[in-house]
C-alpha cells in the first residue's frame, strides 16, 4: 500500500501542476470553451484517478487472458477512426463518444505494451522455461514486428507520427529487455534504418516541413519554424525563477501555439523557470524510477516486462515531449503525460500507473 500511495501522490502532483498550467495558458483566451478547459481537465484527472483505483485493485494477470481481445479491440477502434473519426487540426485521430473525443492511438500504446509483454513471456509447456530464449529471428523479431506494424501503420496514416513512433520505441525497448539475441536486434535495426531515406517520399508535406524545421528552425520563422522558435523563447525567457504564475507573456499572449497541449511544458517553463522545471522533471523521474524498481523486483515475467514497458514508455514520452519543446527533437505530436490537456492521454497514463501498482501489489503472490 505504501508504494501505491507514493505513485498516486506523485501522479496527482504532476496532474495538479498540469491543471494550473492549463489554467494559466488559457484563462486569457476569449470564449467560454477556453475558460472551461481546465475544469474539464480536472474532471479527466478525477476519472483517471478512479480508473487507477479500479485497475490497481484488479489482478493484472487478467490482462494476460484479455490480450487478444484488447489487440482486436484496438485494431477495431483504429479502423473506426478512419471511418467515423473527427478531423481536428488536419488529422483524423479522434472518435466522438457521447460527450468527449477519444483518441484510440493512446489506447493502442497500452494495448501493445500488454501484447508484447505477453508475447515475450510465454513459457515452454515442457520445462516452464521462457520461450524467448529459444526464439530465432522469425519468432523473435519478424513475427512480433508484423503484429506491431499493423496498428502502427494505421496510426501513422491518421496521421499521428508521434504515437506511431512511441509504439516502435516500445517495441525496441521490449526486444532489448527480453532474451532476444542482440545480433538479431542489430540486424533488424539495420534493415529498418536502411530504407529510411526512401521513406521521405511517404511523409506528409507538413511532416517533411517539420523535419526540415527541426534541423534549422530559421528557414521559416513565421511558418513551420514559428512554433519551435516561440517555444524556445518561452522556455528560455523563464530564466532561473520564471516569470511567475499567470505572468508568462509567451503563453498568455498566444505567441506560443498549443500552449495547453503539446507545448504545455514551455508554458510551464516560462512561468516557473529552471527551478520549477527541475522539480517537475524530478517528479517524472521518481515516477519512472518507481516503475522500473517495481519491474526489477517482480518475479513474474509477464508482470516484469509489462512494468518495464509501461514505465519506459512514460519516460520516453516525457523525454520526447520536453526535447521537442526545447527544439531538440522534431515536432511530433507527443503529449506530456499527465500534464497536457486531453482525456485519452490522462486516462491511459493513469491506467498504466494502475497496472504498475497492481503488479507491485501482487508481487508477493509469486
Amino acid at each position, binding site marked *: 500500500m505504501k508504494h501505491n500511495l507514493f505513485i498516486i501522490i506523485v501522479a496527482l502532483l504532476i496532474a495538479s501542476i498540469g491543471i494550473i498550467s492549463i489554467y494559466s495558458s488559457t484563462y486569457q483566451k476569449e470564449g467560454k470553451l477556453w475558460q472551461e478547459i481546465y475544469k474539464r481537465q480536472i474532471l479527466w484527472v478525477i476519472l483517471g484517478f478512479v480508473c487507477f483505483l479500479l485497475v490497481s485493485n484488479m489482478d493484472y494477470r487478467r490482462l494476460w487472458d484479455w490480450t487478444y481481445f484488447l489487440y482486436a479491440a484496438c485494431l477495431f477502434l483504429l479502423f473506426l477512426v478512419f471511418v467515423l473519426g473527427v478531423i481536428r487540426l488536419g488529422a483524423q485521430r479522434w472518435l466522438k463518444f457521447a460527450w468527449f473525443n477519444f483518441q484510440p492511438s493512446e489506447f493502442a500504446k497500452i494495448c501493445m505494451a500488454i501484447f508484447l509483454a505477453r508475447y515475450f513471456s510465454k513459457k515452454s509447456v515442457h520445462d516452464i522455461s521462457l520461450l524467448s530464449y529459444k526464439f530465432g529471428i522469425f519468432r523473435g523479431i519478424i513475427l512480433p514486428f508484423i503484429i506491431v506494424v499493423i496498428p502502427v501503420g494505421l496510426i501513422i496514416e491518421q496521421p499521428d507520427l508521434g504515437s506511431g513512433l512511441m509504439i516502435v520505441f516500445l517495441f525496441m525497448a521490449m526486444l532489448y529487455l527480453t532474451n532476444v539475441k542482440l545480433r538479431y536486434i542489430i540486424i533488424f535495426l539495420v534493415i529498418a534504418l536502411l530504407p529510411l531515406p526512401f521513406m521521405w517520399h511517404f511523409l506528409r508535406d507538413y511532416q517533411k516541413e517539420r523535419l526540415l524545421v527541426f534541423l534549422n528552425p530559421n528557414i521559416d520563422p513565421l511558418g513551420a519554424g514559428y512554433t519551435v522558435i516561440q517555444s524556445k523563447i518561452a522556455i528560455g*525567457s523563464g*530564466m532561473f525563477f520564471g516569470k511567475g504564475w499567470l505572468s508568462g507573456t509567451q503563453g498568455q499572449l*498566444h505567441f506560443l501555439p498549443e500552449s495547453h497541449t503539446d507545448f504545455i511544458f514551455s508554458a510551464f517553463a516560462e512561468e516557473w523557470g529552471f527551478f520549477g522545471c527541475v522539480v517537475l*522533471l524530478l517528479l517524472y523521474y521518481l515516477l519512472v524510477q518507481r516503475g522500473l524498481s517495481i519491474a526489477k523486483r517482480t518475479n513474474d515475467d509477464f508482470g516484469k516486462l509489462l512494468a518495464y514497458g509501461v514505465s519506459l514508455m512514460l*519516460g520516453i514520452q516525457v523525454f520526447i515531449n520536453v526535447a521537442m519543446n526545447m527544439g531538440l527533437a522534431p515536432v511530433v505530436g507527443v503529449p506530456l503525460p499527465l500534464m497536457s490537456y486531453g482525456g485519452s492521454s490522462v486516462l491511459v497514463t493513469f491506467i498504466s500507473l494502475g497496472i504498475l501498482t497492481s503488479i507491485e501489489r501482487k508481487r508477493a503472490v509469486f
Partner: protein
Amino acid sequence: MIRQIIVTFFIIFIFLALVFGLLNLQVFHGTNYRQLSEKNCIRLFPQKGSRGKIIDRDGNIIVANRLSYDVLILPQDAKQRETSLVKLGQLLEVDYKDLKKAYREGLVSVSVPVTVVRNINYKKAIALEELKFELPGVMIQPNPVRHYIYGGLACHILGYLNEIDRWRLTKLEDYGYKTKDIVGFGGVEEKYDYYLRQEEGGLSVEVDHRGRQVRLLGFRPPLNGKDVELTIDLKVQQIVENKLGKRKGSVVLMDAFTGEIIAMASSPGFNPEVFIEKQNSAISDLFKDKDSPLINRAISSAYPPGSIFKAIVALAALEERKINSSTTYICQGKVLVGKKEFACWSTHGPQDLNLAIAHSCNTYFYKTGLLLGGDEIYDYAYKFGLGKSTGFDLSYEVSGLLPSPLWKRLNKFQKWFDGDTANFSIGQGDLLATPLQMTRMMAVFANDGFLVTPHIIRSIAGKDPASSVRRNYRLNIKSGNLNIVKQGLRSVVNFSSGTGNVLSGLGVEVSGKTGTAQSPPGLAHAWFVGYFPYNGSKVVMCVFLEHGGPGYYSCVVAKEIIGEIIKYTKEGRFNET
C-alpha cells in the same frame, strides 16, 4: 540482467540530458531569450512633441508648428494591399509604383505601420479618413512640422531645419542628439536648438501575437520645446524686407540704448519651408546660388565701411586734440601723401569738421588721419568694437578686419606707410566690418558714449538667458567731443549740401553718415548708418547695399524705411514721442 541495468541508466541519462538542455536554455541563454520575449510582446509607439515657437517682441508668432499628415499602412490589417495602394495613388495623385516601392522598402514587420506618403495636406487627409472603411489598414498620422508663417521673412534670423549632419552630431551627441534628428541650421533655430527642441514621448504597449493591444505598460508624455521670444518687431521687419526688396544687402535696426535688434534683414534670402518639404532641387539651388542666399550679410560677411568710418576718425582726432571743431582744411579735390595723390570725390573748398562730415570730405580726413597716425585710429576703432565680434546671440558672426601697423607687419610683412593711414582714415584699405558692427558703432553716438551688446533674444520660456552677462560698456569719451561729431552727423541730413539730405523732411530728426565704399570689381558698396528717435527711444539703422553704388542709394532705401516706420507708429499701437 545487464540489459535491465542499462535501461535504468538510460532513463537517468535522458533525464539528465533534459536538465542540461534546460540549463543551457534558461540559465546560460536566459537573458537573451528574455529579451526576445519582451521584443515579441512590447511595442513602442513614439509620440512627438512640438518644437518651441519663435515669437516677436509683441508676442506675434513668427514660427509655429502645423500638423502634417502622413499616410501609413499597417501590413497585418491591409488585406487587399494592391487595390488599396492603387486607390491611394489615385486619391493622392501619386504614382502607384512609388507607393509600392515605399511600402516594400519600409516594411519591417506585420505589426509595424509603414509610411508610404509623407506630408499630405489637410483636405486629402480628411478625404482619406472618410474612405477608411474602403481602405483597410490605411492610417493617417498627424505629425507636427515646422511652419514658417511668413515664409522667407527674417529667414536669416530664424535659420532652417534639416536632418542632423555628421559634424553637428559629433558635437551634440552628449546632449542626447541622435542620428536622423531634425535640428536647426543657422540663426535662432540652430543657436537655441537645445531649448526649442521637443522631447519625444511615447507609449509602451503590450501586444498579443496579432499585434493587438493588451495593456498599457508605460507612458511618457512628449515635452514641447520652449518658446523663444525675439526682440524683433515683426511689423518693422516686414517693412524693412519689403523696402530692401531684391537688392543685395542688409538692413539692421537696433535700439541704441539696449542693443535690442528691432529688425535685421539680409537679401537675397530663402524660404525655410523648402527644407521642411524636402524640395531637393530648390535646396540645391540655394547652395549653388552665387549670391549665397543662406549667408546672413548683417553678421556673416564683412565689407569695407568707407566713409562711415570717418565718424570714428573725427572723434579720435577730437579726443586726441589733433583738431578742434573749428579746424579747417581746404579741399582742392586731391591731397599729396608722400609721392602719391589721394583724391577727394569732389572739390569742397574750405571745410571745418562739421562741413567735412556733412560733405564726407576725404581731404579733411586724410589730413586728420595723418595727424593721428595708424595706431591711434586703430585704438579708437577697436574701442568702437571693430575687428572683434560684437557678442551677438547668433552663430557664424565674423569679426571683420581691423588693420594696424603691427597687423600689417605680422601678416603682410610690410611697413605701414602714410598712404595706408590715409586709406584707413576714410574707411578703405584692408578695413572690413559687418553691418552689425557699424550699427553698434553708430549707437555710441546715439546713446552718448556706450558700446552696447547687440542681441536678438528677449527671453526663452519667460527668462532672459543672457541678461546677467550682457552689459553696455561706457567708453571714456568727452561728451563735448561727442556732441561735435553728432552735430556733424546731424548736418549730413540737415544741410542741403549734406550727403544724406534726402532724409530730411521726414518729420523725425535723422542723423547719420553715408558711405560709398570702393570695392572693385563691381560697383561700390552703398552705406547709410544713422539714428532717429523711435518709440520713446532711439533707433540706430544701418542700410547696406552690396555693390549698390553710391551711398545715396542707401539713403533712398533708408528714407523709404523710415517713412514707413513713422507711418506705422502713427497708425499703429505706439505713440511717437
